[in-house]
């Protein structure tokens, strides 16, 4: 896992603290037992109990001497924290370009699910063609959730951040609206709230959290695809994945080596190997979490998508 240095350092510190805590508590418990062992049993014994010490030897202790130690509360490493993400997960997405025919259901679902009211969708399906002689194809893109995110590097206030589970999020209550992250992102996936978002009453009572982007959107701050942690927590797939009628999007966990589009579940490594997966602008070194499968052996006709293609529109309202 190529996480950024800061995270691994944090992890290290975190672990160190836990170990020392455990050692201290354990030590106190042991010395407690030991002092009681040396003391003569005060009352009549009610049988012995076998216990194992930390170095592995078995000792017998009078059952009356055994007391329960109050364990320290479970470390929050296994708890969900919005800036740290889900522990021991690494979310990835695979986009199979061979299947995409610009049905745009993904975009509609994303726009709806995130209450997007601006003119620029977070998920866009580009009409691509590398050169005149090569075939055109449809390419959905959203935030690439890079492991070396250029946006996070330039943010002056730590409003956009990278979590341990691979997701890049924005704290819209901290963002100062300098738009440096938008300038830094080579994938043009960031969107700005140039005015008070016109979300109406839907998001009115919403309690803001960075892990549900757009719920609500905040004026003068940046928005983008959040990889739907609000769906993951419900054990559901991101909006775009479920909405796609063609099974273009696969979502999953790199550590589990599994991705699914809701119908088929596949091994990530094997899929990328078999279908020659790649990432966008690999040469930049941004290490995206989104993989693409090349548009080969297509079952769908590119031209079918042309009816839906709108050069100047990606959201419903405009």
């Amino acid at each position: 896992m190529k996480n950024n240095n800061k995270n691994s350092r944090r992890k290290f510190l975190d672990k160190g603290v836990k170990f020392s805590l455990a050692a201290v508590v354990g030590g106190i418990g042991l010395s407690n037992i030991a002092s009681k062992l040396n003391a003569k049993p005060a009352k009549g014994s009610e049988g012995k109990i076998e216990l194992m010490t930390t170095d592995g030897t078995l000792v017998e202790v009078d059952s009356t001497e055994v007391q329960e130690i109050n364990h320290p509360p479970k470390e929050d490493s296994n708890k969900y924290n919005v800036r740290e993400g889900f522990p021991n997960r690494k979310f990835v997405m695979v986009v199979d370009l061979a299947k995409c025919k610009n049905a745009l259901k993904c975009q509609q679902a994303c726009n709806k699910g995130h209450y997007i009211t601006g003119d620029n969708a977070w998920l866009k399906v580009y009409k691509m063609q590398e050169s005149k002689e090569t075939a055109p194809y449809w390419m959905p893109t959203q935030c690439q959730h890079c492991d070396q995110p250029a946006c996070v590097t330039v943010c002056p206030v730590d409003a956009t951040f990278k979590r341990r589970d691979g997701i890049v999020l924005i704290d819209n209550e901290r963002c100062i609206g300098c738009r440096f992250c938008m300038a830094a992102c080579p994938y043009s996936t960031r969107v700005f709230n140039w005015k008070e978002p016109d979300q109406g009453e839907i998001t009115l009572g919403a309690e803001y959290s960075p892990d549900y982007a757009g719920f609500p959107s905040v004026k003068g701050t940046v928005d983008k695809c959040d990889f739907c942690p609000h769906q993951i927590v419900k054990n559901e797939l991101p909006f775009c994945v479920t909405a796609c009628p063609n099974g273009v999007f696969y979502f999953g966990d790199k550590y589990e080596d599994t991705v699914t589009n809701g119908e088929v579940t596949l091994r990530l490594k094997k899929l990328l190997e078999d279908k020659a997966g790649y990432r966008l602008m690999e040469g930049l070194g941004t290490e995206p979490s989104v993989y693409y499968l090349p548009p080969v052996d297509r079952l769908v006709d590119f031209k079918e998508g042309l009816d839906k293609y709108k050069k100047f529109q990606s959201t419903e309202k405009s």
Partner: protein
Amino acid sequence: MKSNDKLLKDLAPKKFGKLGVIWTSLLIVIIIAGVIAYIDQLIKGQIVTNMRDYALWGIYISNFVFFVATSFVGSVTVAILRLTKNTWRTPVVRIAEIIALAAIVMAGITIMIDMARPDRLLNLFIHARIQSPITWDVIIIPTYITLSFLLLYFPLLPDLAILKEYYKKDKPTLSKWYGKLSLNWKGSKVQKSIQTKSIQIIALMIIPVGLILQTIDAWLFSTTYRIGWDSTNLGPYFIAGAFVAGIGALVTIVYIIRRAYKLEDYITEFHFDKLGKLLVLACLTYLYFNINEYLIPAFTATEDEATHLNTLFTGHYAPLFWFVTIGGLIIPIIVLLFKKGRKPLPMFIIGLIVVVASWWKRYLIVTPTLLHPFLPIQGVPESWHHYFPSVHEWLITSATLAMALLIITILVRYLPIIPIQRTADEQEELLKTTKNAEQ
């Protein structure tokens, strides 16, 4: 030989004439219009600008870069000329320092205008992250403001004391203010030695700080992947550009003040000649970096780079590009290389063109790059494919420029723009040497 009285009469701040009053009122009107536009922007959001998700920075940023560049004149003219003991600098240094201070203060304000959430300004300190070039800017700009202020203020002390005496009878309140500001300057040996040392230290400090300021400004762009910004040339390119913009502004303003205050005896053709040589040096240096930035990449341009360069050379931005290159660089070089070109009036015209070209040059650095992202621009309204500033942006930007000019105007009104004490000292020295020569 001018006596000290005449010197004082010539150089002490004067009340504005009719023209001065009209000028100041005009600036204030422009500023008020800009403030109203800014309040509207605060209420409605930056939707009132023509910036959108692709052209995500506009003239607020290019104007900011222009101010930062212009402020460089403080370190170049004042500090470098001082350290290299170029005595001809005397009548222009104070004007240079005033320009530098006004420009850098306005740079700080302009960058805040671009922030969509100025209410969260404190986050820059509370949550500061040191790896962001914006944080570097947050550190360097106040530093440069402080140094520029001190470099203006410390040499002023003796003059303020002189003015205190000068106005004692006629204008007691004004005299009192000058007295307070002069920090009890008596001209004693100790005071003089402290003053000289302090100025020396500040002059030494402001050169690296000025260079760093310009470089950080360049790094705001070159730390991104964008074509046209992601260039190792950008740091020195910005420094050279700042050299041009700053001296251009200096020449222009020196000329205007000289006319308005009738200072022909103090700011002579000799000084313009020297300034002209400095400006031509600046332009030649900048030309060199421009060749590095635009011409040489054309040889090995990738497709994306070629698109970018083509919009500048022959495409949408070509008229502007050739205006700033030929008008703001080539013509000044040609004209100023001749002695006749370094006379006050041609210098003024050239200086003015250089300043205007410098402003548009920054527009060309910011805008075209943003409109050529790596992925094609699709799925956004047609108007997002272009950028030209909105009325709000023009009003606000004009107001920032007017505010810079107003700061300069006010300082010119109340400060002796030519150092009185220094001029007197120099004349005394001159007198001594001529006497010695006669003996």
